[in-house]
């Protein structure tokens, strides 16, 4: 089967843009915050001790920001095929941080494909797809935005 034309690929990529699934909500669990901190050798007491966190001005035990990846992997399950190329690479991540995520919060993630385009790279066609996840707490406060870029070669 022959590879699709550039125009066909561009049409396919453009069609990916838009929301993915329904918003999904998961609680910030104490054990999850602790496990993430330990996995990264992060021994800052704000991730383990409520009184220490309050003393530093937080509402409670603070989730390490990399815990966003737990929502990334679990809250929105989706996949899409590329009709061209051989390999998909997780290229880069761009984070914005706002309101800290505190143990006991309910975090809702809204997921969308926000950009998708075809470029001509050094070794041929390069597809670029950006997915964006917005993390909002139970009070409607924006906690973080994570933009992940996949490259298809």
């Amino acid at each position: 089967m022959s590879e699709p034309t550039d125009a066909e690929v561009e049409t396919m990529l453009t069609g990916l843009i838009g929301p993915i699934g329904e918003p999904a909500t998961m609680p910030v669990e104490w054990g999850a915050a602790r496990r993430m901190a330990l996995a990264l050798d992060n021994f800052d007491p704000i991730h383990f001790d409520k009184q220490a966190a309050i003393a530093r001005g937080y509402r409670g035990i603070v989730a390490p920001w990399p815990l966003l990846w737990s929502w990334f992997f679990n809250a929105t399950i989706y996949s899409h095929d590329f009709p061209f190329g051989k390999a998909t690479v997780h290229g880069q991540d761009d984070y914005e941080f706002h309101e800290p995520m505190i143990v006991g919060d309910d975090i809702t993630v809204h997921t969308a494909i926000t950009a998708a385009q075809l470029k001509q790279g050094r070794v041929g066609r390069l597809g670029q797809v950006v997915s964006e996840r917005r993390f909002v707490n139970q009070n409607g406060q924006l906690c973080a935005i994570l933009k992940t870029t996949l490259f298809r070669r």
Partner: protein
Amino acid sequence: MLNVETKEPPELFFEDFSEGQELATVTKGPMLVGNQVRWAGACDNYDSEWHHDEYVAKAAGLPGIILSGPLMASYLLTAVTTDWLGRHARIVRFFDQNRGSTMPRDLAHLKARVKRTYEEGGKAYVEIDCSVVNQKGEVTTPGSALAILPKRAR
């Protein structure tokens, strides 16, 4: 606190940083499959078997087990507060690229340099360039971070 020996990050202020300043290198490793396993557990994600099993990784055409890109970037993100900018830093932006692989037994030197310090809208910002560099001197994960820091009381 279930037997964790915690450590307060250093207390640092906006005035402690200047453009071009090299920040202390933090070395992780040798990295082990166990680091990847702990990351998978912390993310509750075990889908990518090539991150854990050498046979599967090689069957997929990889040279061996590859540690997760977001894991390596998360070491950088963590070091921003635990080591470089201190306990009062409020990170507002972070960026990273997965440019090279980290494999078991590699070292991960976390390096950072102050790119810019500035004040805007009544807030004091420190921007750093940071990266993971392996034992061969190859930059595997370049990145950057922007944080708000308090100023010393006068």
